[in-house]
């Protein structure tokens, strides 16, 4: 038996077979959790936001349009959660632990690479939220510019320009941090 597509599972949820949501949770929880981790830079908040996202999928299941991409719809919900999250927190926590955000250390990863990853996440944390989100979606979630454009209701060319500008900004912060450390 071939594996049902995300869209089909979501339609099944819409039809009242609510348990089909579990299939979507197991397919997407890691991506959604990591999207929140890299956007909010907080492990506990990311766990809560991931939970709330799937509950919203269930609650607002009837607003999912048949034939549209489930992934895009899911990340629309997740994006709104991040926006609400930043509205709610009055004081932004600029101190975060990279261990909360980065994957558990792999044995074959050298020290230099690890340092680079930590510096990069520190540089990411200094980007404004909306710019960080662009990199999280395009570079960490691997979304195409077309998909991000749909998600943010903007043109593909505008997204591309913004992503490139943000990479430039990130590069400057990254090397500033690296020089400061050395």
């Amino acid at each position, binding site marked *: 038996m*071939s594996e*049902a597509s995300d869209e089909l599972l979501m*339609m*099944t949820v819409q039809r*009242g077979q609510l348990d089909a949501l579990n299939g979507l949770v197991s397919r997407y929880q890691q991506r959604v959790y*990591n999207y929140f981790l890299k956007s909010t830079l907080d492990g506990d908040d990311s766990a809560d936001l991931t939970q709330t996202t799937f509950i919203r999928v269930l609650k607002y299941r009837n607003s999912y349009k048949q034939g549209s991409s489930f992934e895009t719809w899911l990340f629309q919900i997740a994006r709104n959660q991040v926006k609400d999250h930043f509205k709610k927190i009055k004081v932004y926590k600029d101190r975060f632990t990279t261990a909360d955000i980065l994957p558990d250390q792999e044995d074959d990863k050298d020290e230099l690479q690890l340092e680079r990853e930590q510096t*990069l996440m520190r540089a990411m944390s200094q980007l404004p939220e909306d710019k960080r989100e662009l990199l999280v979606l395009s570079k*960490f979630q691997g979304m195409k510019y077309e998909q991000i454009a749909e998600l943010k209701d903007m043109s593909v060319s505008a997204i591309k320009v913004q992503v490139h500008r943000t990479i430039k900004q*990130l590069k400057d912060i990254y090397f500033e941090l690296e020089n400061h450390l050395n």
Partner: protein
Amino acid sequence: MRHITEEEIIEFLETGALSSELKEHLADCESCQKLQHEFEEVISTMDSIGEKKVPDMVQLDIAQAVAKEISKERSRGGFQIWQIAAAVALLIVGFYAGKLTTDDRSDEIIALQSQVDVLKEVSMMNTLQPSSASERLQVVNMIEAEKPAYSEKLLNSLFTTLNTDESPNVRYAAAQALVRFMDQQDVAMRMAESLEQQTDPLIQISLISILMEAQEKHAIKPLKKLLEQDSINTDVKKQAKIALDIIA
């Protein structure tokens, strides 16, 4: 010759696109090479950062929260069903209370039991008549959950619902409710006929799976017809091919 802009370097690293003139320049210009290496380091570091595994406790919390919400949603939608179920339950309680206070009269008990079943079926069938889609959906779901005994009337109602109800949700629920009657004469054949009428991918897949499991030969023709359609949904196509391989 001008230096390469940062924009051009990013574009080059993302797509490999760079004019031959600029490529030549890059090969000789140390400052452009330095810029390229800096962007390479940042982009490749982003690429190398993998995903963090969701901690087991977090996974458990998500699963529990989702399960809780699913059960909440289920209880929210069940009002109409519980009204009918409560009425039927009251009748049954009344009937058994009466039974305790009277002598054992088996024939009357059987007759009353059958009246309860008929009442249950009629109340469900009546609610399948013009009403809101959510009410009809609840009734069809109730038929599946309550598992009433086979009757020609019940079967016809379910097939009429499957083939004509305007709501795909209700039609889907009717298909699920019919699975229990697959061993009855002609049910599989009528389902195969119904497959030709369905346009909703989820209902098509549902019927294909049921017919595949029953290895219903009458499904071959509608399956072939489905596969000839250009606009067929990819999931339906996959499922139809598998079913055809198994049944044919």
